[in-house]
């Protein structure tokens, strides 16, 4: 995976996509082999499907949390947190508790929490699945702008093929588990900087989508036959 590249993993449910991410961040030990990122632990961030904000901490405190864990002085961490909230369109929401934020706002706080750590690699496990289409498009757009600007590498796990293609430089297809493996690799020739919504209209999009869809369907069919 190149520096600053955006890679997606797609595959049928149960192909171990999430487990792979968990192994990269160290939440899970790989059964065999090792995970090499060449990065320090604090340089890898992860965004989960649910925002997992601490409900008893304000948005600002939630964002500052990781910074203080890594030795930043509290006051400086809070200032930094405010700056990140502002960058993610949440200026003035720092004092709110997660309960009083909308789903999209919570996702932005979770994003600020991870990006504030200045990761070199960002892992995302279906991070936008819970958002409605419009909110999702806007959060994704801001995310793409930020990772492009900061040249953060991204590894995204999703089963939304459209999301995978519009966001990624490369898409990998995992086969049906158990013992899933990478079976296909699709470079996405849509130029950057990208607008994730308009990327769909790029001429490369439709044929890639069709191919990916056909391959994924085949992978799912194999499961049905095996069963």
């Amino acid at each position, binding site marked *: 995976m190149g520096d600053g590249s955006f890679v997606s993993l797609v595959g049928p449910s149960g192909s171990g996509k999430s487990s792979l991410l968990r192994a990269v961040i160290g*939440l899970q030990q790989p059964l065999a082999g090792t995970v090499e990122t060449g990065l320090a632990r*604090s340089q890898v961030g992860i965004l989960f499907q649910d925002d997992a*904000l*601490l*409900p008893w901490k304000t948005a600002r405190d939630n964002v500052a949390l*990781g910074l203080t*864990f890594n030795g930043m002085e509290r006051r400086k961490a809070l200032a930094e947190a405010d700056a990140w909230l502002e960058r993610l369109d949440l200026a003035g929401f720092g004092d709110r*508790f997660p*309960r009083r934020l909308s789903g999209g706002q919570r996702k932005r706080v979770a994003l600020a929490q991870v990006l504030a*750590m200045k990761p070199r690699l960002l892992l995302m496990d279906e991070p936008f699945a819970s958002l409605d289409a419009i909110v999702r498009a806007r959060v994704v757009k801001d995310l793409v702008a930020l990772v492009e600007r900061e040249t953060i590498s991204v590894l995204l796990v999703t089963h939304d093929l459209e999301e995978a293609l519009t966001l990624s430089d490369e898409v990998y297809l995992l086969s049906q588990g158990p013992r899933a493996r990478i079976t296909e690799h699709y470079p996405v020739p849509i130029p950057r900087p990208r607008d994730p919504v308009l990327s769909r209209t790029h001429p490369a999009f439709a044929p890639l989508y069709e191919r990916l869809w056909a391959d994924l369907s085949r992978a799912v069919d194999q499961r049905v036959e095996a069963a």
Partner: protein
Amino acid sequence: MTRLDRRYAWVRQLAAFAAVLAVWEAAGRAGMLNPLYAPSPSRVGAALIDLFSDGRIWPHLEATFSAALGGLALGIAVGVLLGVVAALVPFIAELLEPVMTVLNAIPRVILAPLFVIWLGIGLASKVALSFILVAVLIFFTVFTGIRQVDRRLVERVVTLGGDRWALVRHVYLPSVASWVLGNLKIAVGFAFTGACVGEFVAATEGLGYLLSFAQSTFNAALMFALILLILAVVLVIFGLAGRLEKHLLRWN
């Protein structure tokens, strides 16, 4: 059916209550109720005023409060401690859980006579009864609570670089605090139950003691007055506990 404006529910409730009192009072004055069993509200009110006017109620109130609040504080402290330890050390959980389950299953007030034998008829036996009522409740709250701490929050803190202490401070402690606070009102009720029942069994002062005195002298008016007083006391404490809960759980 006409729709009721819910905002004024308390007005209707109050009016209905006043009406019941008025009927009760009227029936009493008309000689339809035996004052020995059902003293009219005015007699109960007089008994209540009597208790306060000569000041003899204060030492009793103080005794009951001391017992209840002492038992509450001790019960929460020990309940949290044992709950946390049991949740973290499987060996301790193995030993504690059956004991606590048994204590939880029995009506714990049956221990009152035992505490009197062990600790005398003074304050200590009342505190002990309050304590055992509260501690078992809080133990289970914390013990089951810690096992149900949201895994996602734990993983979030770990992946942000938090160590064990960070987990305790930012995930476990706030979780425990929120469960304990959520049960604070029940615990307050238990604490006063323990104190009053303890005094009822054997004591020289306290609201429970006065109650048993009223019983042995067949003084129904005093009994009603005391029941009202205990009700008022618990309501006030409930209110305070509710405000504390609301403030500390304002994120919820």
